[in-house]
C-alpha cells in the first residue's frame, strides 16, 4: 500500500497538536530519562579519562645505591640502553626524584617533610620493548643482581592493582550507564503505552473504517519519532549545560589537580548527544509502533 506522504505529515502534525497533554508527557519522559543516561555516560567518560591519565607507561624502575660511583651508574645505563628488550630509559637523579616526590605529595606536606633529596635514590625508569609480564620480570631479575643497583621494582603489581581498580570503577560505571539506559527505555515505552491506551478507541475506529494497520501505525510512529527527537534534543541541551557547568567547576578547582583528570572533551559530549538523539528517535518510533499494535487487533 502506497502511503500518502501528505496525509502522514498532516495526520502526525494534528495528532501532536490535538493530544497536547500526551505529547508533553511523552517528551517530558524522554527528556528526563535521556538526560540521566547522558550524564551517566559523561561521568563514565570522565572516569575513563582520569584512569587513563593516572596510569603511566613506565613498567620498571631500577633504583641505584645512593652512594653509587658515576662510572658504575653509566655502565648500568649503557647496559640498559643496549639491551634489545628495553625500548627507552630515563635517568632520574636524586634531586629530580625529590621533585617528583614533592609533586606527587603536594597535598600531603607531612610526607614531603619526611624525606630529603639525599635520602631518595636515583633511578633509571625503563620502558620495556615488550610490556609483557614475563619480559618485565626477566629484565627485573637481570638488573636486580648487578652491582650498584639497590633494587629493581617492576611495576607489574602496581599496574595490575591499578588496572583492577580502574577496571572495577569502569565496570561499575558501565553497569550504571546500562541500567540508566534500560530504565530510560522502560520509562519511555511505559509512557508511550499509557498515552496510546488513552487513544485506543480512536485506533479501533480507524480500523473499523477500513484503515490498514500500517496506515494507522505510520503516523503514530512518526509522532513518536518526533517526540523522541525533540526530547532527545532537549536532553542534549541539558547535557551541554551540565558539562559546561562541570567544566568550569573542575577548571576552577586548579588547586586540586586531581579533578581535572575527569574533564570530558567536547567530542565525547558530541558523541553522547548523538547517541541520545538516536536512542530518543528509535525508542519513540519503535515504541509507538509496538504500543499501537496492541489495539490494532479489531
Amino acid at each position, binding site marked *: 500500500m502506497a502511503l500518502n506522504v501528505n496525509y502522514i505529515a498532516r495526520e502526525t502534525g*494534528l495528532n501532536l497538536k490535538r*493530544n497536547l497533554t500526551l505529547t508533553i508527557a511523552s517528551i517530558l519522559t524522554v527528556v528526563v530519562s535521556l538526560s540521566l543516561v547522558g550524564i551517566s555516560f559523561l561521568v563514565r567518560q570522565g572516569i575513563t579519562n582520569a584512569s587513563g591519565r593516572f596510569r603511566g607507561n613506565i613498567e620498571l624502575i631500577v633504583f641505584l645505591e645512593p652512594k653509587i660511583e658515576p662510572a658504575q651508574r653509566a655502565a648500568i645505563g649503557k647496559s640498559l640502553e643496549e639491551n634489545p628488550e628495553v625500548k627507552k630509559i630515563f635517568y632520574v637523579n636524586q634531586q629530580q626524584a625529590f621533585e617528583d616526590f614533592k609533586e606527587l605529595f603536594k597535598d600531603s606536606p607531612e610526607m614531603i617533610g619526611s624525606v630529603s633529596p639525599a635520602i631518595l635514590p636515583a633511578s633509571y625508569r625503563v620502558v620495556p620493548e615488550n610490556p609483557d609480564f614475563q619480559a618485565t620480570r626477566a629484565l627485573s631479575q637481570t638488573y636486580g643482581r648487578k652491582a650498584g643497583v639497590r633494587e629493581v621494582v617492576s611495576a607489574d603489581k602496581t599496574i595490575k592493582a591499578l588496572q583492577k581498580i580502574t577496571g572495577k570503577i569502569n565496570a561499575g560505571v558501565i553497569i550504571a550507564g546500562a541500567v540508566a539506559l534500560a530504565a530510560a527505555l522502560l520509562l519511555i515505552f511505559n509512557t508511550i503505552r499509557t498515552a496510546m491506551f488513552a487513544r485506543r478507541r480512536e485506533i479501533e475506529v480507524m480500523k*473499523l*473504517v477500513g484503515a490498514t494497520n500500517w*496506515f494507522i501505525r505510520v503516523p503514530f510512529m512518526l509522532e513518536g519519532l518526533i517526540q523522541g527527537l525533540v526530547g532527545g534534543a532537549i536532553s542534549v541541551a541539558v547535557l551541554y549545560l551540565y558539562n559546561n557547568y562541570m567544566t568550569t567547576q573542575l577548571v576552577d578547582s586548579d588547586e586540586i589537580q586531581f579533578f581535572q583528570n575527569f574533564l570530558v572533551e567536547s567530542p565525547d559530549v558530541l558523541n553522547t548527544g548523538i547517541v541520545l538523539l538516536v536512542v530518543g528517535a528509535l525508542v519513540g518510533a519503535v515504541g509507538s509502533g509496538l504500543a499501537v499494535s496492541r489495539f490494532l487487533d479489531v
Partner: protein
Amino acid sequence: MIKLENVTKVYKGDVVALKDASCNIDKGEFVFLVGPSGSGKSTMIRLLNKQEGPQAGRIYVAGKDIAELSAWKVPFLRRNIGCVFQDYKLLSNKTVYENVAFALEVIGRPKHVIKTQVPAILELVGLAKKQRNYPEELSGGEQQRVSIARAFVNRPLILLADEPTGNLDPNTSVGIMRLLDRINRTGTTVVMATHDRSIVDTMRRRVIELDRGTIIRDQARGVYE
C-alpha cells in the same frame, strides 16, 4: 451479496445473541432489520463487517467467506462496506470534515476529490455549517448524521446502518431515508436496523425480524409488526 448460513453468535456468559440465523440478501436489496432491544440486530451487523466472528455458521459477503479472509485483507472488506454505527464511533480528535475525509483518505483518494466530495455529502446531511466542529460540539442528531455521511462518502457496495435515525426528528429522518433510498437505487445493498415503525411501514421493503437471536420473520415489502 450477503449470505448467512446457520450463524450462531454466543457471548461470554452464555448470551446467545444470534441463533442459527440464515438469510440471503441480493445485490441492490434494501432490508430492514427489526426486533426488540437486545434481539441481535447490532450483532448481525458487527458480524457482517468482521468486527466479531461467529461461533458457528458461515458468512459470505460479495461471494467470499469472510471467516477465511486473512487479517490484512479485512480492511479491504470494510472499505466495501459503509457502516453507520449505533454509537456513531466518530474520531473525537478530528473535526466533522476530517472524520468524513478519513474514509476517503483510507482508500487513497486524491486531495482534490476529497475537497469536493466531503462538503457535498455534508451538505446533503445538513451539516454544511458544522464542518469545522469536533464531535463533542455537536448535538446527538448531528453526530449521527456525521456517521451517516462517513458511511457512504466512498460509495460502498454495501451500506450497513444501525439505527441511523434513532436520534433524529421525524423530518430529518425522512430526509435521511430519501438519501438512503437514492443510494440504494444506484445499486448499493442497504441493511438497516431500526426501531422506527413509521419508516418501515412507509417504505415497504423487505423486513427481517429478530427475536432473542432468532430470525422469526423474513418478509418482502413488509411492515414493522
